[in-house]
Each structure stands twice: as C-alpha cells, then as structure tokens.
C-alpha cells in the first residue's frame, strides 16, 4: 500500500514533464535552417566530431565509487540496527571500513585523484 502513492506521484510528475514538452511543441514555431542546426561553437565552423575516443581522467574514481557505494549500502542496515547489535557489530564494521580505507589511501598515494596525473610511478618520481 505504501508504494501506491509513490506510483501515483511518479505518474503525475511524468505528466507534468510531458505536458510541458507537448505544450511547447504545439505553441512554438518550427522553422529550422542549416545555420540554426549546426553545432554551436561561438560562430566557428565545428571541426571534427567530439565523439572520438577521449581521455576519461577519472575512470579510477568510477571504480572506487562502486566500492564505496556498495559499502554505503552495507552501512545503512548496520546503522539502523547498531543500537541493538552492540559493540561487536561496531568492531566488525570498523574492520570492514579500515580495509576499504586502505584502498582509498592507495588511490590517493597513486595520485589518481588529481586532474593532471604525473607519469606512472609510485608517489614521487625522482626527476
């Protein structure tokens, strides 16, 4: 029963979105021309396509994101029940978090959290 209002709300919100787009489509003029439809780059002719292979700087971030997001998922039920479970549960979670923190420290030391990553190597290169 709790999810019925949610479903109604989702439907109503979707209706708002589509009504806005539909009204716009009905009311607005539609006169495309080639100049209007070009990619906007401040008046310059666009050179090449942006759909090339690009350097995803933070793919390592995406990996640790998954690790930590799963950690958060484990933390929620633990947090709700901690008061009943007592000290043993706390110690267990502390160990779990410590292990993940080592991973974070490793990524930090490898400098994957910086926009300009120095050449591959451990912490500091000699030159």
């Amino acid at each position: 029963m709790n999810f019925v209002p949610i479903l109604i709300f989702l439907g109503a919100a979707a209706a708002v979105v589509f009504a806005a787009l539909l009204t716009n489509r009905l009311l607005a003029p539609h006169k495309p021309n080639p100049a209007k439809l070009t990619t906007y780059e401040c008046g310059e002719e666009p050179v090449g396509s942006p759909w090339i292979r690009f350097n995803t700087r933070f793919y390592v971030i995406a990996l640790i994101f998954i690790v930590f997001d799963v950690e958060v998922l484990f933390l929620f039920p633990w947090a709700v029940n901690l008061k009943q479970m007592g000290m043993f549960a706390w110690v267990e979670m502390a160990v779990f978090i410590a292990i993940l923190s080592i991973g974070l420290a490793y990524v930090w030391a490898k400098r994957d959290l910086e926009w300009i990553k120095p050449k591959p190597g451990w912490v500091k290169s000699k030159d």
Partner: protein
Amino acid sequence: MLETIIILIKVWAVLIALVSGAAIMTWVERKESAVMQDRLGANRADILGFRVIGLFQPLADGLKMFFKEDFIPDRADKFLHTLAPILAFFPALVTFAVIPFGDVLKIGDLVIPLQIAKLNIGYLYLLAFGGLAVYGTVLAGYSSNNKYSLLGGLRAAAQMISYEVCLGLTLIGLIMVYSTLQLDKIVQQQGELLFGFLPVWGIFLQPLGFLLFFPAAIAETKRVPFDLPEGESEIIGYYTEYSGMRFGLFYFAEFVEIIVLAALVSTLFFGGYQVPYLYADGFSFPWGGHWVLPNLIIVLLQLASFGLKIAFFCWLQVLIRWTLPRFRYDQLMRLCWVGILPLAILNILLTGLILLLIKP
C-alpha cells in the same frame, strides 16, 4: 475511494507547490544577486503597468519557454537529446514524495498524514532517484555532439558520482542516532527534548554530519562553487545545445533541486515541520505552562515552520552561490575524496562508539 482522492489531492498540492516554488526561486535568485551586487535586478515585466518588484518576471520567463522554438541540432543524437532533460527534471520532482511536510490533519474521524508516502526506506528512495539525475546531465553532454557539452558532461560524471558517495556516508551518523531510514519517524523523534529544554534536532546531535552533508548536497545540485559541469563563464556546459522547453526543464530542475535540498536539510537536521515545544495537543513549555490548541492551528503552525525553514535554506544556497568563486577541478575532487569522505567515516565510527557507550 476516499483514500485515493486524498492521495490525489496531496500529490497535486505538492507538485503545484514545487513547480511554483521553483518559479519563485528563479526570481529570488535574480533579485538576491542584484541586491548583493548593488543592481536593481529583474523589475521590467508588468501586467497593466503593475510591476510588483519584478514578481511577474518568472511568469514571463515561463511563458517565453513555451513559445520558443525547440530544435535538435543536426548532428545530435535525437533520442538521447530528448531523453536527457526529462531525466534531469523528473528525479528532482519525485524526490519530494517521501518528505513529510506536517504531522497529521484531522477532519472529523479522518486522519490524514501530511506526507505522500510513509516509506520505511525513505532515505534510500531519495538517494536512488537523486542518483538518476546524473544520467540527465551526462547524456545531455554526450548526445549534443558539441565539444563544450561533452566537457561539461565529462566533468559532471566524475563530480556527481563522487559526491553521491559522500551524500550517503555523511548521513549514516544521523541514521544511527535515530535508528530509522523513515523520514517521518526521524522528524517525529526530533520533536522530543534533550536535557529538558533543547529540541533533539539533527544539528545538535550530528553537527559534523551537517557540515559535511550540506556541501556534498550542494555539489549534487551542481551550483557554484561546484558548477564545473556548467561553468557559465567558460564552457556553458552540458546544455549548450538546448533550446525552448527542453532547456527550460534543465533550468527548472536546478531550482526544484534547491527546494528539495532545503526541505531535506530542514527535515533531517532542523526538525522538519516541528516547532519547538509544540506537541500533538498544543504547546507545552519546559518552564511550565500548557497551551491547548486545535489540530488545524497546529497543522498550520507546522506548515509555516517547515515553509520558513525551506525559505531560509533556499536563501542560504543562493547566498552561497553568489558569494563563492568556482573550485578548480582537482580541488573539487580532493575536497570529496580526502576531505569529506574520511571525515564522514570518522563521524560514523565516533557516533557509533558514543552511542554504544552512553547506552542505558
């Protein structure tokens, strides 16, 4: 049947409040920035010569969105280009479903909880739909086939997933204290008193949690100082190629997010709809004295209290947006992963320890 009608009325009221609130926020943002920069700000829109300090401006803006041509650039991906603004706006709207805006309204024998849905996984629902917003931004950046948009989308991807982790972790401490994910239960517990006089608001129990949660949440809304995906003054960002109502949806989503964030912060940390010393039957002061009030007055007081708190945090966010300069990207990442995140973990462990040590 009656129940369904009540739900429909609540849904309608909340949606109207959110959308018109967002419209008013566009005016607040322009006016507040104008005051801060010693300008007049928006004051030209008028109806029959009445200008009312520019309050008709959002109306004019909204109407303009409907009448502007909405075109898709030739080289863009047509499907994803249309889908992106919907994915940006829709989650912002639906997150409000679990936020309680009052206790219960009694009409005769009818007891109406003033919340769309009492979900026992309330905060998880919020996180889940909040997480969807990243798709809107990244898809807009990618599908536009524009280099500036792509840059915006790339920046948004790393920023939003990073701060999403913080958004979860910073609140674990609060959830430990109240032992529930259900937002209305959290608010109910905040109506009690600490030491006999201080309301048990989240801010008093989790000050560090609040200090960490608020910046992380602002980063999720992509506003200054975290506006790198947009970067108005440098790359324009992921919605460079948008026009008409589809641009309007992105624009509006930002303001809906401000309101939802303000509501969330006041719900979790500032007692939500609670008024200090106001209980289900009236005021009851710690220094003695009891003042019985009818249910309707109490509900109105609660709504007013919630509205004022939301207004305050909306104002605060606009103030922050017009005060601080933009972060550099590496600073942004460092703040999240080696600033907020370790402190949040520390907060969790400390809170747990304290909770277990003072347990009766």
